[in-house]
């Protein structure tokens, strides 16, 4: 005969049982999907439905004024709907390796059916493609939504760091977009074309780092740093990694988050606040900052976060990373 205490004990055991961490790829993809949903403007259908089902207010005495108001509102709504209709036609269909840079600077993965607001920029990554209306965009295309229309522009050439800087960077450095969604980058600092972010499970070929033995002038090719933190990574002797960054006005401390990979797979993008697989490796770091990378780690990525005295994030860097031979 089971007692109530037995049942409670069983429930406590169930509640205290170890649970596996959710898969990092799942956590990251869900965040991207939520961000994409949140960034998608309300559908035109919903707006129209809202108009249709808006409850009537029977103020017959004010009928003429009401009629005039309705006319004006209808005109305004009509114009707005017309504009929205043009934008709503811009939806992503079957995107493959597509990044969308939203007008506020956030970078999200393009998902099927995602509607593009004015000012959104599409970057088609390696082997990527997407159909937007009648247009088929392919690898390397960059397009911007302007007044509800898609304008395809030439892809911006990658920015190569100054060879003098490159001389100090003797390892492959990969930079990624600042996707800490808690703090959008300043519009003036938003990159024209951020480097395509690798999928969590299979990074696109374009993001593969060059061989560590290649000359610095070719190994430091990277995209423009959107943040004024200007994070740089240098591998020192052995497995020591040095990070340097510029100070940000108003920042009272700098936190560093890191992800690692012990396999051939690229590490996840480090995010702040750190949640596995991102780990906080320094809460109050100063530039330059260095750390030995544990044996067995094949690749590592870092990101620096500037915080003010209240703990609020005021800037995030792109992530930088390097790989170590097996």
């Amino acid at each position, binding site marked *: *005969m*089971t*007692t*109530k205490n*037995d*049942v*409670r004990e*069983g*429930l*406590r*055991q*169930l*509640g205290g*049982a*170890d*649970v*596996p*961490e*959710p*898969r990092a790829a*799942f*956590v990251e993809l*869900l*965040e991207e*999907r*939520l*961000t994409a*949903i*949140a*960034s998608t403007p309300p559908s035109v259908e919903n707006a129209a439905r809202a108009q249709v089902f808006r409850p009537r207010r029977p103020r017959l005495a004010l009928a003429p004024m009401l009629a005039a108001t309705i006319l004006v509102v209808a005109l305004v709504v009509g114009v707005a709907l017309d504009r929205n209709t043009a934008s709503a036609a811009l939806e992503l269909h079957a995107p493959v390796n597509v990044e969308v840079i939203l007008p506020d600077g*956030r970078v999200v993965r393009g998902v099927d059916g995602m509607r593009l607001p004015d000012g959104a920029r599409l970057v088609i990554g390696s082997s990527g493609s997407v159909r937007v209306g009648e247009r088929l965009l392919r690898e390397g295309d960059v397009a911007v939504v302007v007044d509800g229309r898609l304008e395809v522009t030439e892809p911006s050439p990658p920015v190569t760091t100054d060879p003098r800087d490159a001389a100090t960077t003797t390892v492959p450095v990969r930079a990624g977009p600042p996707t*800490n*969604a*808690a*703090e*959008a980058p300043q519009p003036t600092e938003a990159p024209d074309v951020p480097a395509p972010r690798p999928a969590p499970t299979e990074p696109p070929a374009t993001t593969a780092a060059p061989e560590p033995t290649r000359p610095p002038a070719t190994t430091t090719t990277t995209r423009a740093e959107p943040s004024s933190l200007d994070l740089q990574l240098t591998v020192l002797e052995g497995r020591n990694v040095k990070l340097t960054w510029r100070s940000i006005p108003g920042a009272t401390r700098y936190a560093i988050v*890191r992800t690692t990979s012990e396999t051939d797979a690229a590490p996840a993008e480090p*995010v*702040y*606040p*750190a*949640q*596995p697989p991102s*780990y*906080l*490796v*320094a809460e109050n770091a100063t530039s330059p900052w*260095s*750390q*030995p990378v*544990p044996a067995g780690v094949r690749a590592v990525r870092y990101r620096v976060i500037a*915080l003010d005295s*209240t*703990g*609020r994030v005021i800037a995030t860097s792109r992530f930088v990373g390097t790989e170590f031979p097996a």
Partner: protein
Amino acid sequence: VPLPRRTSSFIEDGFDERELVSRAATDPGAFATLYRRYVHRVHGYIYRRTGSRDVAEDVTSATFERALRSIEGFEWRAGGFGPWIFRIAANELADHHRRQARAGSPRAHRAVHALHSVTQEEIDERSEVGADLDALRTALDRLNPRYQRALELRYLASLSHEDAARAFGASKATFAVVVHRATAALRKVIDAHARAARIAEGRAR
């Protein structure tokens, strides 16, 4: 430099939750911060209840998508965002059970579940936590949804008693009564199951 310990514990992100919630309806970044703060706990809660990583991911996704769509109507109350998100998770979990029940009889469902949706990895994990916990999950399945939800929130969500009551949508006293009755009901289910097993065993002999 000391290396970070591999741990799943949460690092305080320094954001005021109330402010995040107030911004979340219009600022996807604020919602993303809330998401990162709670996704592991919500996933763990659902995993404990279902024992399946796939189901946990599905229900976690549904929970946060619903939360995102409802955040505009969220009113700050004592306990904050946590009880609210767990309430949504509990509802999504109940919906999941309902859908599964509709898909077939419980026996057929369990057979299909055992055949298809449990990976070897999950089987290994299950054997680690013990078959007793699986039996307890099965017994929970047989309770009415209200009792299931009460016990899930009380024992599996890692919430305080107060927050579990808030997530349940009842006062602390009412919640305690529901949990008490649900525990009694669960005990009956377990005993009935044990009796049935004994009878079946006797017949087999």
